[in-house]
């Protein structure tokens, strides 16, 4: 969790997306709001005390507190007062702010040279079925199987209009491969859709539908 210049806990999460997801999961619990009221009221509290007060199973309270502890929202210390040692939790952050820049997830920008270097065509005997719109004939989806034997499963990928146009002109298995740039030029797809097209190309290469040189 973040800290301001004075070292006070600002409650600002600037971790990775996973941290953000974990905190959001905890906060979305039905009992989360009541739990935080309890943490604000008590100096320290144990999982069993919280569970009994909120009418929760002790494991539920324990998991919640451990999750908050990992994220630095609460701290804990081991105490040896009773028969067995246990943890007591203290709220450390009285303000929670969640901030995450989604641009960090954006795929790397496609370099112009990449579009010309990457030569692709459909892979022979890939087994994919390309669904076409009965009205327009455009490619609208691809269905293929993944896995083998008992783990075999069918995947259906819906295509955007530009992806459909791109794949419509993907060279056949016995044709000479073409560069991504050449196919995009042929289909007059605007460069703003480069990431979208490359995302599908990468995915289909991994799925074994498209062959890359």
């Amino acid at each position, binding site marked *: 969790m973040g800290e301001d210049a004075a070292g006070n806990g600002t409650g600002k999460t600037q971790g990775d997306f996973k941290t953000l997801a974990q905190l959001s999961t905890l906060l979305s619990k039905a009992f989360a709001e009541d739990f935080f009221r309890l943490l604000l009221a008590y100096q320290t509290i144990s999982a069993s005390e919280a569970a009994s007060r909120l009418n929760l199973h002790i494991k539920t309270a324990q998991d919640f507190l451990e999750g908050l502890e990992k994220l630095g929202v609460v701290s804990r210390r081991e105490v040896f007062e009773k028969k067995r040692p246990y943890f007591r939790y203290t709220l450390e952050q009285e303000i929670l702010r969640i901030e995450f820049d989604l641009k960090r997830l954006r795929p790397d920008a496609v370099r112009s040279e990449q579009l010309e270097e990457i030569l692709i065509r459909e892979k022979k005997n890939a087994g994919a079925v390309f669904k076409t719109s009965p009205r*327009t004939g455009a490619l609208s989806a691809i269905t293929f199987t993944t896995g083998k034997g008992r783990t075999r499963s069918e995947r259906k990928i819906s295509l955007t209009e530009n992806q459909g146009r791109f794949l419509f002109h993907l060279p056949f298995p016995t044709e000479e491969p073409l560069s991504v740039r050449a196919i995009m030029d042929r289909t007059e797809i605007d460069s703003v859709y480069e990431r979208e097209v490359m995302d599908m190309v990468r995915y289909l290469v991994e799925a074994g539908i498209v062959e890359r040189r």
Partner: protein
Amino acid sequence: MPSANRLKPNTGLIFGITMGTAALAAIFFVLARGFLDLRTLRLIIAIAMTWTALQQLIFLFRIRNIQFLVPALTFLTLALANYAEWFEYDTARTVFASIFLPLVIGTLVLLAVNPLAFRSRRILELAARPVTGTEDGYTPRPYPAGDVQASKEEIIRFARDMKRKLIAFSLINRDRVLLAISDHDWKYVFNSRPNPQKTTYAAFDFEGNFSVHIAKKDYRRCREKLTFDELCSSLGHVFERFFDYHRIGEPERIIEELNHLKEKQSG
């Protein structure tokens, strides 16, 4: 250029003859055994002929080819003659029987000169001929075959003409025209929404782009595993050529080219 007959033999005709022979044998058997009397058999024939006549009329209206009127009248006359026999209308029976023979002769002459059958097999053969590669590479995707500089009206006229001339069955919708070719083209008469995955076709959109698709069952009819993109490209050229013939006002060259192929195969 590779030799003629790039497609496997057509087993449909053999099947048809076998079934017809079996049907005749069955009729003689039931008559001989007395399971049915001649009068009842005539009624069955009359109903069957009525249905066949109706089919021919449906073909006439769906395909807009007036030649279907001849077999339609022939079957209808045969049906009426048998109904007349059933109802024992002697005069009617005589009338129908007397006009039946000329109609039959007319039908046979018509079929000899211009068989009422779609020429799907010849189109596939025409496409397969120039292909030299045998790398297989089948894919169920349509193949972008190029574009034709044509208006929507020209494309629709071409499509309708292809259907009327029994070259390919045209299916016209809001965005494009599909020219379907198959051994069983007649099914499109009753079903105007074929499964694109299972249909061999050439598709023209109204911006002039056209593509072709070869169904797996039709690809399997080739004697060899022809290089698939070459075969698709060739089929595209065939339809491009047909379109050009039509556009320059020489549509008869399409039939000539297909008939010439038939002569080569027979010769």
